[in-house]
């Protein structure tokens, strides 16, 4: 049981973060808080991807100082998988764009209703 919790702690952290974000997206009344929840939700997925790339004692997948002596990672087992990192760089760009669009729309809503509370907006729009 302990092994199940401690040994896979990265998954637990990502699930807890994801649920916090999910809760904020569903339950919060304030639109900006919903966006913050959305960001936590997305960040948890970034952490998930990064953690699955990790290897204990792994190094960079780069041949720095090709002529120098010292530690160099040549075989796949020695370096950390770089691909999830690259994927997450792309995903971060996508998430920033989503955040930008969401904030722009919140500004549009605020200019129209002068409030960011969802129930007040619904009352005002009826």
């Amino acid at each position, binding site marked *: 049981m302990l092994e199940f919790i401690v040994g896979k702690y990265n998954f637990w952290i990502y699930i807890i973060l994801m649920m916090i974000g999910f809760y904020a997206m569903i339950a919060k009344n304030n639109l900006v808080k919903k966006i913050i929840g*959305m960001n936590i939700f*997305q960040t948890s997925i970034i952490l998930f*991807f990064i953690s699955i790339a990790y290897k204990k004692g792994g190094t960079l997948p780069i041949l720095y100082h090709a002529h120098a002596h010292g530690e160099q990672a040549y075989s796949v087992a020695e370096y950390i998988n770089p691909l999830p990192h690259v994927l997450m760089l792309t995903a971060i760009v996508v998430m920033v764009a989503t955040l930008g669009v969401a904030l722009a729309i919140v500004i549009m809503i605020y200019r129209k209703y002068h409030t960011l509370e969802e129930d007040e907006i619904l009352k005002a729009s009826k």
Partner: protein
Amino acid sequence: MIVEQSPALIVVIPLICALATPIVGLVRKEWCYYWVLLSLLAATVFSIVTMGRVLSDGTIRYFLGNWDPPYGIEYVIDHLNAMMLVLITGISFLVAFHSKESVADEMPGRTVFFYTVFLLQVTGFIGIVITGDVFNLYVFLEIASLAGYALVAIGEDGAPLASFRYIILGTVGACFYLLGVGYLYMVTGSLNMLDLAQLLPELYHSKVILVAFAFFMVGVAVKMALFPLHVWLPDAYTKAPSASSALLAPLMTKVAAYVMIRIMFTIFEPCFSMEMLPVTAVLSWAAVIAIVAGAVMALAQRDLKRMLVYILVSEVGYIALGVGLANRNGLTGSILHILNDACMMMTLFLIVGAIVYKARTRTIADFRFLHRKMPLTMGALVIAGLSVIGIPPTCGFFSKWYLILGAVDAKQWIFAVVLLLSSLLNAVLFFRVIEYAYLEPRAEDAHGHDDEGVIIRMEEAPVTMLLPIYAGVAGIFLFGIYSGEIISTLIQYAVPTCF
């Protein structure tokens, strides 16, 4: 040769043209419209060329930057997505053609930005369909979704709030898809669809694969607006401007349905999708509820556009039902319905755009004398309505016919009954609209109004609106009459051989 590069050009042309649109707009604002038309025409031509190549030589695999898969990104065009490409580029061209007056009318001063986002939206759709890489698909899915949020938000009063809700739910859907990609990558180390299809069968007993599959299905179902997850759709598409909803309503749900078919039958083997999880049963029951609930909700609407949006929810149910039946006839009907429904929904939403532009109303009760005011538009509405009901020789009949055959093959009589019942409900829906638009009010009803003396002048929509509407009507008939040919040249190759 330029023909060999056609898969890349279909994506690159709208993307580059989208980024160049603001520059064109700086020179002369009116040129943007022609610029968008030109780029979409070029994309349509290249997609037709690509389909010709697929029909003559079989599946095309295009390696971007000449990196061999599974290391590089590849575009894979087989019969299914060759058809989707022609559908997407053709429909977006017709919607752009229609949009000249309505965009200037509904979004004065913002036409340049509208057309930029419009082209980005089309780029997203094309990219989702053409790519053979699951992560690349996620990126294009987000391009399409982000452009969609913007296109919805510039609409009428409640549009920003509707768009905000769409963002929240759409992000959840896309993130679930991304998690599915992550889980698949964890156990296979690959992102290429064809490579995954080879690696996965050995791992089907693994729970990680089941979780990945579940995340994929839920994520795509949100994007596709399958029944319990459809809540974002009605508000967003009703409040979007006419041109945006005419682009989004026919294509966004269909593209997501395409992704679902890809995941279930290309990445995973059909036997896995059907046997390891009860996914087909869940899918077909959700679809049946969607069909009935969509039609019943549509009955309650007084606004024509809102009624169409609920009909769209029920049409998505048809596509999901065909996938859920998981036999040859069912899936054929489902893919045929992607084609037919995109054509019908485009025609209907373009008609709404024309009515809003000329008659300044969407309330069905205000449609009196509209058949005298806009005879051509209302004629097209009747034909498109007959197609949604499913009357031969319009295309709606044939896809429903295959779906009913599929339901009978699967021995699911209740699904066949629901399909027939929904045709009846659709008949009620459209005859209500036709009644208001065509039948003259009786003398005692008109009492107190001075309609009797008024001569209704004919005020037909402009030619730029009528041409795409009638292209859609022609499509409704042609897809119906030539449905046999469409199935034998394109769709039969898209259905997995083990069915």
